Structure formats: C-alpha cells, structure tokens
C-alpha cells in the first residue's frame, strides 16, 4: 500500500471512530472528552512537505467539524498541530529528515521517551487551543484548566493503548523508494 492510500484509509478510520464511538459513548465526566482523531496528524510521514502537512491537517479537522457541527473549531487546532510538528521533530531528534530509517513518527522510529514527549506536547497544545476557543464563548478559567488536563490525560492513555495494540510495521527506507 502506498503512503497516500494508507493515510486516506487511516483518516477515515480515525474520523469514524471519533464520531461514532468516542463521541457517542457516555463520557466519564463532562470534563473528560476522549479525543483521538488528531493522531492522524501526528502519524503523517516525515517526508511530507510542510504545506502538505498544513493542508492535510486542515482537511482532517474540517472533516470532523462537519460531523460535529462546529465548522472551523477542530480545523484550527489541527492546522496549529501541523504547523508546529516539524519544529518539534527537529528539536527532539536533531537529524535531517533524509536520515530517518523509518517513514513515520512512531515509538520505534524515535524511541519511546522522545515519542511520548512529542505526543504529549502536541496533545496538550491541541487541547489547550481547542478549549481556549470554547472558553471564548463560555466557561471559566478553572473549567478550562481542568478540561485541558483531563482531556490530555485521557488522550495520552488512548494513544498509548493504540500504539500498543497496533504496532505499525515500519518499512525501512531503501534507496529505490
């Protein structure tokens, strides 16, 4: 499967899981909203151009927005993720992208600790921005803080579970590809 087909397939799986499972199950508490769909943006290949990342992030967010009736909300957060992702990767792993042996960010490609840090920072950013946009409309600052921490916690848990359940078999980058 080529990268493009794989990622389009992934996008639909993430969106469907988010819309029909995670948004519909009774939440533990109104502060604990399980978000997982943005893992799509985190899993995009290293080789993508930065503009490509931005467009993919925007598309992913907007698709979810059309399902949840909040056009622009998740799109804005995902665009922010996609913009900051390359900076964070170069910061955590100071290597040229061509030197990577793996195609996508994964625990195996980056090592567990840097990968978890990478996921944690971007998750925190995503939720802070999302909740900040909601805060503008209603809510208090305390609500905002608790919500960000609670959603980040549940998202990290979900992401670690996903990583353990689906260890992606990453192909080595060969000279021909």
């Amino acid at each position, binding site marked *: 499967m080529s990268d493009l087909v794989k990622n389009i397939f992934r996008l639909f799986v993430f969106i469907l899981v988010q819309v*029909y499972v995670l*948004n*519909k199950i*009774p*939440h533990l508490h*109104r502060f604990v*909203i399980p978000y997982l769909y943005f893992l799509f943006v985190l899993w995009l290949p290293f080789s993508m151009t*930065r*503009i490509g990342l*931005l*467009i993919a992030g*925007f598309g992913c*967010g*907007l698709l979810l927005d*059309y*399902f*949840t*009736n*909040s*056009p*622009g*909300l998740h*799109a*804005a957060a995902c*665009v*922010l993720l996609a*913009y900051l992702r390359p900076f964070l990767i170069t910061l955590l792993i100071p290597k040229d992208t061509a030197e990577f042996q793996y195609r996508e960010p994964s625990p195996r490609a980056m090592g567990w600790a840097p990968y978890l840090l990478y996921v944690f920072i971007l998750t925190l950013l995503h939720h802070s921005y999302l909740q900040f*946009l*909601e805060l503008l*409309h*209603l*809510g208090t600052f305390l609500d905002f803080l608790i919500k960000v921490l609670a959603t980040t916690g549940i998202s990290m848990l979900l992401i670690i579970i996903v990583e353990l359940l689906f260890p992606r078999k990453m192909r080595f980058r060969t000279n021909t590809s």
Partner: protein
Amino acid sequence: MLNIFLFIRRYITFLAFLFLQILALWMLFSYNRHHKAVGMGMAHQFTGTINKQVDRLDDYFHQGVENRRVHRMNDSLLNLLQSNFSIPDTSRQMVVDTVMVDSTKTYRRYFWMGAKVVYNTVNFDKNYLQLDRGSKMGVKDQMAVLNSDGAVVGQVVNVSANFSQVMSLLHVQSIVSASLKTTGESGRIRWDGKHPGLISMEGIARNVILKVGDTVVTSKYTYNFPPDKFIGTIASVSSDPATGFYLLKIRPAVNFRNVQQVFIVENLMRDEQVQLEKETEKKMDQQSKTNR
C-alpha cells in the same frame, strides 16, 4: 516587486498557516453567530448519508424499547376511539346548524410530521441532532421538534435538501420559553452545559408558590412550539437572593441519550404572527412620532 515575491517564497509556509488558521476561525465565529457556514449544506448531505447507514445498524439495539413506547402510545390513542363510548340516550340528538359561512369552524394551527434521528450527542456544550427530513419535505428553520411522547427535544436550526440539524435543549445557546402548568407563570428554559440530566429555568418570581415535582410545559406565548407540551419536572428549587427570582433545576422529560423517533411540528400561522408583530412595532413607532 521582486522583493515581494522573495518574501512570499521565503515565508510561504507561515503565510499558508496564517491563511488556514484565519479561514478556520472565520468559519467558527460566523457559524456560532448564525448557524450558517461555507459548504455546510453539502456537508450535511454527506454526513447525513453516513449517519443514516450507521443509524440503521444502531436501531437493532433499541428496537425493543422503541416498540414498547409505540405500543403504549397506540394504547392511549385507541382508548380515545369513538367506538369505546356508547351514547346513553338515543332520543336526544345534537343538531348542528349548517350555515355556509361558519365562524366557529376550526382551522389548523400545527402540523406534525414524523422524522427519524440519525445522529445525536449529549456529551458536549453544544449538542445537535440530525434528522432524516429536509427542505424537500417542507422542514424550515425554527420548527419545533418533539419526541414520540410529545415532549420537547429542541428546534430546527439548519436545513439541507434531505436532512435537518436540530439544536437540542442541551445546547448552551438554546432558549425556550416555558411556563408552570399549575399557575401558568412563564419563564425561560436554558442549559448551563454541565449535566445532561438537568436544565435550568429562570424568570419565575419568588412570590409564586411551587414545589419539587411540578410540571413545566411550553409557554402559550411562543411562536415556535405548540402550547402545553411537556418539558420536564422541577428537580430542585433555590432562590437567588440578589434578584428575587427562583433558580429552578428541571429534569427534562426526554431522555436525550436515546431519542429515536421524533415529530417536527410546524406552526402554520408563524409567518402571520411574526408579520403582525413587526407591523405593530412599526405602527407604534409612527404613532409615537405623530403624537409628539
């Protein structure tokens, strides 16, 4: 000129980021204000077809409950049938005068049509339902939506050709005017975005006598909802010392988690009522000008 191109080429990523960010925020804020967004109609067609398929699967898990509810509803309707009642005295007859123009003739105020909920959430601050009827079937903005027991679910905010979006009572922007069934005092129903099992009612003065368990129904003064439809019962009473109004918590009659079949109710006289109100305002304005 060359410098501009160089500048754009250098900062193209940042500019693209800014552009997409502003586009997203613009969509968000314009949607929050008047529930319209770019491509929303087309998106509803798309999400609607997927939602419908998922809902068909989902239906299998609720069929038992839904069946019992419909059966109960049928039961209450069958009890109203004419054939259940016998007329005790056949010698007396009611004669109705048949004048051609009859000023007591009834006319239809509300039209009910059935619809199916295809997507529904209760977990967010702004919860919407999606129904499988749209402008093709005559659904318009601001029509009332009641569940199969006749209790208030919400109102239509956006319509595409085959689907419609409903703002449920569990939406922080939703305001429904309601009244107490016992005394007829009217107030407003809102939701604070906290617990899906409790909505709040405001605007009831503290001299009104009420108690926990009293019924709250839709007000007679609203254009969108048919009057005297069940909203919920009072769950707790507390008073706001600053304003002299009660703070009432209402337990909604609808279980928003499993709304399946609903009715969309159209007020056939709505346009006339709204127009009358506007014209009255205009008239009063003119009068106050001429009186001066």
